[in-house]
């Protein structure tokens, strides 16, 4: 052919046109390249949130690409494709979109034609009217735009295949001629390939909340809205070839690339210094002198000089200053914070106070985190006390202004379960069936999303609808659903942020976010700072305050005595209930084997019980080497440098990446892409090429294939929960701090952690119990003694002191514990009380309340709140037990409360006693039956989630003894392999994702806890009991490994009905640990599940159990005794 027609597609919508586009930006790019298009412009619906992904993909694919947006107006103006011609045009486009975003609701921008008039300069525009709207209104829009922006305006035209294309063409010609603009051919595509039509229809059904069968014209008539090659466009536009050529002219006008967005660090006040670098250097040296004294060790000084030089080279000083300022602000507000992340564990950061982790302790190399060749921006996350993070966020908004600071976005994407659920709904399947289907889906890959799981869910795979649902669910997986705010990633710029990226509303009032997520910002080298919330920091802050107030011992993270052997002793005993990170069952099991003796051991401990090392099967090799059961060796000489500190076993994300580079021959850039591909999971499906490349690369370099595969699996594991060494180091510091507090001041620790709830694994009941076992005297909530928070009180002289109270199990702690106070439970422990009302109660307490009525009249509390106090048994100080108090509360007459003035206190107005019974004085005595102790405890659990009076199981002890059940305290005396019979309240049920369906249960009786392992087979037999019971008896073999005791269940019995013997209502979920996965879902932030049923959830997450179960069910089917349906007719 003489001249190949050229064509650039300028009306392509990706799936960032949420629930409209049916292809990833990357797919559009790759297809455009394959079709040989001269260029591609991405124009999503009122957003540019997909542009960076397309940009990165286009760079990789070698495709000409321009970012833009499709403006969809709310005032009847036809759609307009808008593309910036230069950097300023981009700024205007961003301002335009921002204006629409801020005017509308979240996710529903409201754009007006006036916005286009205001911000249209510097943009190339193509009006894309609907075929039936090619009328005079459209003409006037064209004429207006033409008048305002001249030749940069086009009339876009697309073949709709609706039978009227010729009419559309003629009408477009007429309008173009009348307005003097040129016609431009566009594809108006919503997907890269015709095969995505079905997916597009499903998206429409989801979007409009109608099943497919009723969606009608919301669905596509055909699959023509896909990318087409130039020849095809030329054929379609053979009557108007100039329109195709015009696409090239339009594309040629666009001189803006996202690469042109050069990030500008915000100016920070430099004080007396001339430049940010100088200011940073000044701060660093000042800080070094504070940390190390006037004689800074040479090694440190050298390191500081080295780091500062690198920072100067990369021009990162402003960034460090920004973080420093935020940390400085937090300190000034007495908000505890702690930096972590790649750059945080540098000597400079230590010196300027961003982190308290002494780099000497960790020996981390700065270059490992800031690499000059990648020019990746430094990454520092800062954790703040969770209650006070908002103060910091508002400070940032205030300091930089909303036009310069905004939160990063998080792209909420469809994951397996949500995809299956919504697709099933689109197919009109019932809630039940969609639950079954979504429950059957596991993992991310299409391979898994198949027959086995569907069968396991009891679905008929020969059923067409089921097949379609599964097929489309896997296609939709990874599709963006909407934007949400990142948990704390801030973008701060020197110039207007809204000229870099559009700003949009977030679901939370008072916050604004940008349209790009972390990865997008990363890709463009735009810096962000993570401002995160951490409950443990709140706990530590509160502990420091209590220590200062009650023990006169002011401490900071920096001044806590370092590397105390007693603290590590405690950790080795796994006496870590409540402390940061190493408190979970899995961690506690690991501690006695790992036996951390120094700070770096804690760093490893924090990192090792994570999906990465577990999936990579790295945990056991490390343990064996650590225990000296296996010699330390290295896969190769070059890896010795990488793995030296971890005994030759890769544990950290950095190490895994380094292996990819050193052993598999990845370039640093490739390794980075690998990490990102994992982090944002299978968006483009290039994982497998990475896998092949890595494993083959390693094998080619002489590594064992098995090791190579494990390394890759480890990287996969890091994908979801990347855990680099630098983070582990910062966390380890908090681990140590919390352990130190718990070791020496269990009273302080207990009060602080109760006041920081909810956080951590355990419920108040366990925290209180643990504190008591460590000798802390606990005092009940009382109207005349408690504050809102849990507090410390002086001990009575005649009470035994702490060491005397320590339980024998913790006798080693006798000399460590320095507790001298008692803990008074605060009102916050009582369910259903309101802090603001309780504040009145406390304010007006004066010399104390002497009756229920007195409290009511003086505190102004509503009767319901006072009843809650009675429920919590908080009237003991005035001699009323729970029932007595309730009886008195019931007599408070709410209706006449308003008229109540103490003056008028109406004495006995004896009317018809049945009528109102108003009399107060001389009321008939009522002998209320006393509440039995068991019932007291149950009520304590119900209203306080804990009881200081007794343990519920203690009331059943006689019964349990008769059954031959052991007390938990006796388990220490039983040797491994013997059978044990235990019973207790269920505290936690967990099924760690990495443990192949094993369920861990923790039981509690009045003497302690027992840890139970339930294997899948046993679980299947007793699933109803394991999942549903609150009190169980477990029989099984006891395993004692270095003091870690487990009972491997072979028989489970439900004793819950016994609880009803204590009190008919039972204790509900009282006392259940925070971490129980059955009743206490830890909801992923990314995917807010309806808190429908965690129990069903647990099963969904363990489809392998389901399969086993199905087998079981089939064998049982013959013996089925349940009759079908109802029995009457």
């Amino acid at each position, binding site marked *: 052919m003489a001249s190949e027609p050229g064509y650039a597609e300028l009306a392509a919508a990706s799936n960032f046109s949420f629930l409209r586009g049916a292809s990833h930006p990357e797919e559009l790019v790759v297809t455009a390249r394959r079709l040989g298009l001269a260029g591609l412009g991405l124009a999503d619906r009122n957003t540019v949130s997909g542009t960076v992904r397309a940009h990165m993909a286009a760079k990789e694919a070698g495709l000409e690409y321009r970012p833009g947006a499709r403006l969809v107006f709310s005032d009847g103006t036809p759609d307009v494709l808008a593309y910036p011609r230069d950097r300023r045009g981009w700024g205007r486009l961003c301002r335009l979109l921002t204006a629409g975003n801020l005017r509308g609701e979240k996710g529903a921008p409201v754009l007006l034609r006036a916005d286009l008039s205001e911000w249209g300069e510097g943009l190339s525009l193509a009006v894309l009217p609907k075929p039936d709207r090619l009328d005079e209104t459209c003409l006037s829009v064209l004429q207006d735009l033409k008048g305002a922006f001249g030749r940069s305006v086009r009339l876009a035209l697309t073949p709709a295949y609706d039978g009227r294309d010729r009419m559309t063409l003629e009408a477009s010609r007429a309008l173009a001629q009348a307005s003097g603009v040129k016609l431009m051919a566009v594809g108006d595509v919503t997907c890269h390939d015709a095969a995505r039509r079905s997916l597009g229809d499903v998206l429409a059904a989801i979007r409009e909340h109608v099943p497919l069968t009723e969606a009608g014209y919301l669905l596509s*008539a055909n699959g023509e809205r896909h990318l087409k090659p130039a020849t095809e466009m030329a054929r379609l536009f053979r009557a108007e070839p100039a329109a195709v050529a015009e696409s090239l002219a339009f594309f040629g006008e666009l001189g803006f690339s996202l690469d042109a967005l050069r990030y500008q660090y915000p100016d920070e006040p430099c004080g007396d210094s001339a430049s940010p670098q100088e200011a940073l250097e000044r701060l660093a040296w000042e800080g070094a002198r504070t940390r190390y004294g006037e004689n800074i060790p040479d090694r440190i000084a050298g390191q500081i000089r080295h780091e500062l030089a690198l920072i100067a080279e990369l021009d990162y000083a402003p960034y460090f200053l920004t973080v420093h300022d935020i940390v400085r602000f937090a300190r000034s507000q007495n908000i505890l914070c702690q930096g972590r992340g790649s750059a945080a564990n540098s000597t400079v950061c230590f010196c300027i106070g961003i982190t308290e982790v002494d780099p000497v302790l960790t020996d981390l190399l700065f270059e490992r985190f800031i690499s000059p060749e990648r020019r990746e921006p430094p990454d520092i996350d800062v954790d703040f006390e969770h209650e006070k993070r908002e103060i910091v966020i508002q400070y940032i908004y205030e300091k930089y202004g909303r036009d310069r600071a905004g939160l990063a976005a998080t792209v909420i994407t469809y994951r397996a379960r949500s995809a299956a659920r919504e697709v099933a709904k689109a197919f009109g399947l019932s809630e039940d069936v969609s639950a079954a289907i979504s429950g059957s889906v596991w993992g991310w890959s299409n391979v898994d999303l198949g027959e086995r799981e569907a069968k396991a869910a009891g679905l008929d795979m020969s059923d067409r609808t089921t097949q379609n649902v599964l097929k489309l669910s896997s296609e939709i997986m990874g599709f963006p659903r909407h934007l949400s705010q990142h948990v704390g990633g801030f973008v701060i710029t020197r110039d207007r942020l809204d000229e870099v990226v559009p700003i949009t509303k977030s679901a939370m009032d008072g916050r604004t976010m940008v349209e790009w997520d972390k990865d997008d910002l990363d890709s463009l080298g735009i810096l962000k700072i993570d401002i995160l919330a951490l409950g443990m920091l709140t706990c530590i802050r509160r502990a420091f305050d209590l220590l200062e107030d009650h023990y006169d011992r002011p401490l900071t993270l920096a001044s806590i005595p370092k590397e105390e052997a007693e603290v590590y002793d405690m950790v080795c005993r796994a006496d870590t209930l409540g402390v940061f990170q190493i408190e979970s069952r899995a961690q506690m099991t690991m501690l006695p084997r790992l036996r951390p003796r120094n700070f770096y051991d804690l760093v490893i401990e924090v990192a090792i019980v994570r999906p990465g090392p577990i999936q990579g099967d790295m945990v056991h090799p490390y343990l064996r080497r650590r225990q000296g059961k296996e010699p330390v060796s290295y896969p190769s000489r070059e890896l010795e440098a990488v793995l030296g500190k971890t005994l030759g076993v890769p544990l950290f994300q950095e190490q895994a990446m380094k292996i990819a580079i050193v052993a598999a021959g990845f370039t640093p850039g490739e390794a980075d892409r690998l990490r990102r591909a994992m982090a944002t999971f299978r968006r483009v499906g290039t994982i497998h090429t990475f896998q092949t490349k890595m494993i083959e690369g390693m094998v080619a370099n002489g590594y064992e294939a098995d090791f190579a595969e494990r390394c890759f699996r480890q990287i996969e594991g890091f994908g979801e929960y990347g855990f680099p060494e630098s983070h582990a180091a910062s966390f380890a510091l908090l681990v140590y701090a919390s352990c130190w507090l718990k070791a020496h001041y269990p009273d302080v620790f207990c009060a602080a952690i109760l006041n920081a709830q909810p956080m951590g694994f355990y419920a108040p009941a366990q925290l209180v119990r643990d504190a008591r076992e460590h000798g802390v005297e606990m005092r009940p909530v009382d109207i005349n003694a408690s504050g809102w928070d849990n507090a410390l009180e002086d001990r009575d002289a005649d009470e035994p002191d702490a060491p005397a109270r320590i339980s024998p199990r913790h006798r080693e702690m006798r000399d460590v514990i320095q507790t001298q106070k008692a803990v008074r439970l605060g009102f916050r422990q009582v369910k259903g009380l309101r802090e603001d009302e309780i504040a009145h109660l406390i304010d007006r307490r004066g010399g104390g309340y002497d009756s229920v009525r007195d409290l009511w009249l003086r505190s102004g509390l509503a009767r319901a709140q006072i009843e809650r106090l009675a429920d919590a048994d908080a009237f003991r100080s005035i001699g009323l037990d729970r029932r007595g108090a309730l009886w008195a509360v*019931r007599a408070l007459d709410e209706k006449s409360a308003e008229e109540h003035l103490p003056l008028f206190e109406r004495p006995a107005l004896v009317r018809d006693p049945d009528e109102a019974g108003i009399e107060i004085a001389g009321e008939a005595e009522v002998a209320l039956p006393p509440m039995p102790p068991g019932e007291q405890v149950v009520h304590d659990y119900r209203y306080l989630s804990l009881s200081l009076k007794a343990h519920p199981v203690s009331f059943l002890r006689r019964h349990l003894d008769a059954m031959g059940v052991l007390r938990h305290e006796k388990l220490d005396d039983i040797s491994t392999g013997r059978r044990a019979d235990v019973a207790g309240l269920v505290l936690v049920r967990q099924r760690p994702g990495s443990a192949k369906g094993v369920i861990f249960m923790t039981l509690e009786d009045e003497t302690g806890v027992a840890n139970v392992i339930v294997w899948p087979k046993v679980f299947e037999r007793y699933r109803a009991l394991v999942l549903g019971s609150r009190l169980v008896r477990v029989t099984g073999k006891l395993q004692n490994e270095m003091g870690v005791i487990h009972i491997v269940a072979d028989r489970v019995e439900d004793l819950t009905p016994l609880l009803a013997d204590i009190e008919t209502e039972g204790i509900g979920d009282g006392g259940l640990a925070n971490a129980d996965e059955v009743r206490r879902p830890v909801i992923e932030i990314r995917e807010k599940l309806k808190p429908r049923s965690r129990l069903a959830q647990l099963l969904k997450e363990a489809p392998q159990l389901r399969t086993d179960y199905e087998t079981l069910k089939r064998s049982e089917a013959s013996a089925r005794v349940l009759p*079908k349906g109802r029995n009457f007719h």
Partner: protein
Amino acid sequence: MRIASLDEAAETRGLRRGQGLADARAAHPDLDIVPADAQADRRLLTAIADWCDRYTPLVALDAPDGLFLDISGCAHLFGGEHGLVADLLARLFEQGFAVRAAVAATPGAAWATTRFASGTLCIDRGAEAPVLAPFPLAALRLDAETLAGLAKVGLKTVGQLIDAPRAPLARRFGRQCLLRLDQALGAVDEAISPRLPVPALSVERRLAEPVGRTEDVEHLLMALATGLKTGLERSGAGARALEYTLFRVDGAVYRLCVGASRPVRDPETIVKLFRERLAAMGDEIDAGYGFDVVRLNVLARGELAGEQSDFARAGEDDPDVALLLDRIAARLGDGAFPDTRHPVGQAVAVESHEPERAETRRPASAARFPLPAKQNVLQPASPRPARLLTVPEPVEVVAGVPEGPPLRFRWRRALYQVAKAEGPERIGGEWWGDEAPADLCPVPRDYYRVEDEAGRRYWLFRRGLYGPAGRGVQPQWFMHGMFA
């Protein structure tokens, strides 16, 4: 979704009402689940209430699962209270119901005893207190909140409540708890609200030998109507609405109602009115093992006044479309289900891109006349033909490749030259249906509107595409309709 009800097997597995279904399923994946149908339950309860009509016309529903029968003055017919309860329990048991019952002087006591006593009891008036005392407070029909409040202060049985001083109780828990107590003990009267209106007049026959033949049923009716006559004469009235109730031995109850345009009193007339009804009901009345109780109720009365002339002669024209449709159904329909298979269909636009599905016929009996205001039905971008062929007919076509409109075509042996053409309109087909191929990409159709040289306009389509997009399907042409 929550569990509304359980059978014994499920109860023994530890499931309970109110439990989340998902939880129950997770614990017991083999649960057999039937969606709760409150309406069906209510219908069933109503049917049982109907049946209980045989004991007394005063039956009140106590949804979801209870009935109150006011048997004052009825018990003697069944050999006293014990006899009545025994008869009722036995008969319901035979029908497959698990039923508990109690007789008491107050509805409250009966309610409590039915649910909380271990056996079937008949409590004499004044003897309620000792029976009720050991029952939990739930026996008093108190709301959950009051119950919880009383339990918290340790008051858990009816006896405790009886013993407690009244004033402090009323003050703390409201009057409801005392009212319920008083109602149960008979200190305060409580009326039940019967489900059916109490008939103005009623006569009934109880038969030792159940009857089943139509003649017998008519004969009994005559007897009953005669029995009514006196009552009607006494009040100077005639019946304007009558109900003939047939109680079948096994529990089924038939109610036949007739209305009279003017009050009637004459037994012959009444029987005539019912005769047509009985004939019309035809097979629907199945006497089975026979009827053992029959009752004739007067539901509405009117004064017997002078005769009125009858204008009922129908005019020659009739404005009523509905009537026309009924007549057509009567003549053309199969008579079984006139509502769902009415021979006349109303065109209903369906939002579907597929021409065959874009319009359906709805039984005209479902239509309302006059027609409701025009709905905004979306139309496809391109016009549709005035007549659509039920089955597209293959045609031979000469057309440009790949997407040219037909130039010439042969249909039903005639050859047509195309003068004007519009298209294509590409219709991709519904991919989610059962007929769609596994890859979810049905073969598309390209529709063309063409006009032949004479000026006839047709709707033709090509099934399949040329080139790689056609994916190997041989394109074929069809005629699908004619435009105006």
